[in-house]
């Protein structure tokens, strides 16, 4: 190899490194080594891949919900639980009516979306007043909404015996099965198997539709205006864009996507998780979009998609692989904590340099 071609290779490698960034390289390397280990240990790859695909479909829309707030300059939406709660109220109400299958799922969405619009609008109003501290305020607004709703789940007038605590007969259960209502309706819709890998067609198509819709939205006039607000508020204002309206729209959109996202998540998981479960809902979504390459100022559909695929494949296969290799010791939870929070710190400390 001549010196010149060596130099170009080096240049190419450096470009690739700068494009990807150190954290993503580490995560890709970790993911590859996990797959290698799985092959060495002769684990059933088809199960790992099947689970990964389902997990990606489950979480895709929750991660997508991060984009509008990043695009309009509000930052990472740690207040995602606000929307998640709206979605859960929708799910629980639909179940209370005893609706089954797609009817139940769409009824849940029909209840959740207006609730999310209202909650998101109020949340946006609050964030508008605390500019510069949106992420911190958002985190604790999310936390307090979740803990406040714990009291609601306990006292709310839901009477369907399948949902309330068996003993005492008061308050909703912590986890409610969706077996008899809308569990896995999307997953099973037109699902098929190929090479022993089950493809949850409905789930992936549903997720894909939302990705396309959001991509189209960012291409539209409103979407472009929103991105202008995010990248340069002064310029946006001088070119006649209503900055506050765009930020409100971004936050509300994010909240609505979170509500839909949790419904998709729950139907695929097969259970609705109430009480303190939504407390940490924001963190995996935040970590995913950052792992995908988004920064506090720039986020695209591609970032959300790549991030979801990388992070959730990692989470899915880390547990079985490490358990096989280490005989019981579970480091996947620890790895998740270190990686997702490390990624968030990386993004927070690097936002100024563009």
């Amino acid at each position: 190899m001549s010196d010149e071609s060596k130099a170009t290779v080096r240049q190419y490698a450096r470009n690739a490194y700068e494009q990807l960034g150190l954290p993503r390289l580490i995560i890709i390397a970790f993911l590859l080594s996990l797959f290698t280990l799985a092959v060495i240990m002769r684990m059933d790859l088809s199960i790992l891949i099947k689970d990964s695909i389902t997990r990606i479909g489950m979480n895709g829309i929750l991660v997508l919900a991060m984009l509008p707030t990043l695009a309009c300059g509000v930052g990472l939406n740690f207040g995602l639980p606000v929307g998640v709660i709206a979605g859960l109220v929708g799910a629980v109400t639909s179940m209370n009516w005893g609706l089954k299958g797609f009817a139940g799922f769409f009824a849940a969405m029909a209840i959740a979306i207006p609730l999310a619009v209202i909650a998101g609008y109020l949340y946006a109003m609050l964030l508008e007043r605390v500019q510069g501290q949106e992420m911190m305020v958002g985190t604790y607004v999310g936390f307090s909404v979740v803990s406040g709703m714990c009291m609601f789940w306990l006292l709310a007038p839901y009477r369907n015996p399948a949902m309330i605590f068996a003993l005492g007969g008061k308050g909703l259960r912590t986890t409610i099965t969706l077996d008899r209502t809308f569990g896995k309706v999307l997953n099973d819709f037109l699902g098929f198997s190929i090479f022993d890998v089950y493809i949850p067609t409905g789930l992936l198509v549903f997720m894909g539709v939302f990705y396309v819709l959001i991509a189209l939205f960012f291409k539209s006039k409103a979407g472009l205006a929103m991105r202008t607000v995010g990248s340069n508020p002064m310029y946006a204002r001088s070119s006649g864009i209503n900055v506050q309206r765009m930020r409100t729209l971004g936050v509300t959109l994010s909240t609505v996507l979170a509500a839909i996202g949790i419904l998709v998540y729950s139907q695929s998981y097969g259970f609705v998780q109430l009480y303190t479960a939504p407390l940490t809902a924001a963190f995996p979504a935040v970590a995913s979009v950052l792992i995908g390459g988004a920064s506090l100022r720039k986020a695209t559909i591609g970032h959300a998609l790549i991030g979801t695929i990388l992070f959730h494949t990692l989470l899915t296969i880390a547990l079985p692989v490490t358990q096989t290799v280490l005989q019981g010791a579970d480091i996947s939870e620890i790895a998740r904590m270190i990686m997702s929070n490390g990624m968030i710190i990386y993004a927070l400390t690097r936002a100024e340099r563009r």
Partner: protein
Amino acid sequence: MSEQSTAQVETPARGLGAGISSILRNWSVPIFFLAISIAGIAAARLDINYLINEVVGRFGRNAFLVISLIIPVMAGLGLNFGIVIGAMAGQTALVIVTHYRVEGLAGFMLATVISVPIAMLLGWLVGKTLNQAKGREMVTSMIMGFFANGIYQLVFLVLLGTLIPMKDPVLILRSGIGLRNTIDLIGLSYSLDRAMDWLWNGFVFTSIGATRLGPWRFPLCTLFIIAILCALTTFITRTKLGQEMRAVGQDMHIAQVAGINVDRTRIIAIMMSTVLAAWGQLIFLQNIGTFNTYSSHEQVGMFSVAAILVGGATTRRATIWNAIVGTLLFHTLFVVSPLAGQRLFGVSQVGEYFRSFLAYGVIAVALALHAWQGRASKSK
């Protein structure tokens, strides 16, 4: 100045009014929570002696941790959620001391000494990181707490017994890898609380007339240490370093121009806070007597921050009195709310949830109010 004071002498009524209104303005948050506490006490029909005993104990346990938040606020870093990391340093020292079976006050003192270098190193790392995230210190310190929790678990659950050789049937899990979930601190329990028992054992059990007083128990030595810490914190604010911190907290650019090394000052503030938090966690654990290896530290940051905010502190201004009043009020609410929930709704769970709603809600509202005011004053 003199004109003002004569005016006040001439119209004492107005001066008094202004005094009351300034008290109301500065202490509106604690007064609000005092009202809630009193309502809760009335609703729960609580035995007042039980309440005092609980609150005194909890004050001794938590005040040190809450006070450790003051210095970073002064240096403009906001509320340091990273005291969780200090708590982890304290716990690490505790594991070492328990392993070598050093007991009693000597063991406690040894743990405080061992925790210092660990906390300083971790505090330095946190300070370095926060200097990269100016304007977003609070959210960054919070996430750093979560991140450090991952590292902590990695060290004590996976590396201990594999990479770090340690054999101790009392501390290590039966598999030989990782620490047990709970560690009994028999040797260390109450070692500080009762270190001054030779003076007075802090036990109150009398009655004045028909009213019974007690039984309460004051953790005398701990309260003494807290008093020293209060004096020390006040002293630090008056030193050159303290003045520099204030200058940095007021305006980083002006401080920089005035020749203060801003980054270094901020790192020192965080390091101090981290060391104090390590000690605070040691005080907390010697009072509790058992140590949940993987969860004792988790809520330290949130509860301490909520306490100081209940005491009327903001992200830019926090005093000793905010810390003390806040700790007392927050823990009164903590004791009262499950009982009040039981009485009012017939479900004690409601009170439990109300308690965490309160902690989170206080932080959310206080942060929002402050950011709001900050913007309002800026736009003027």
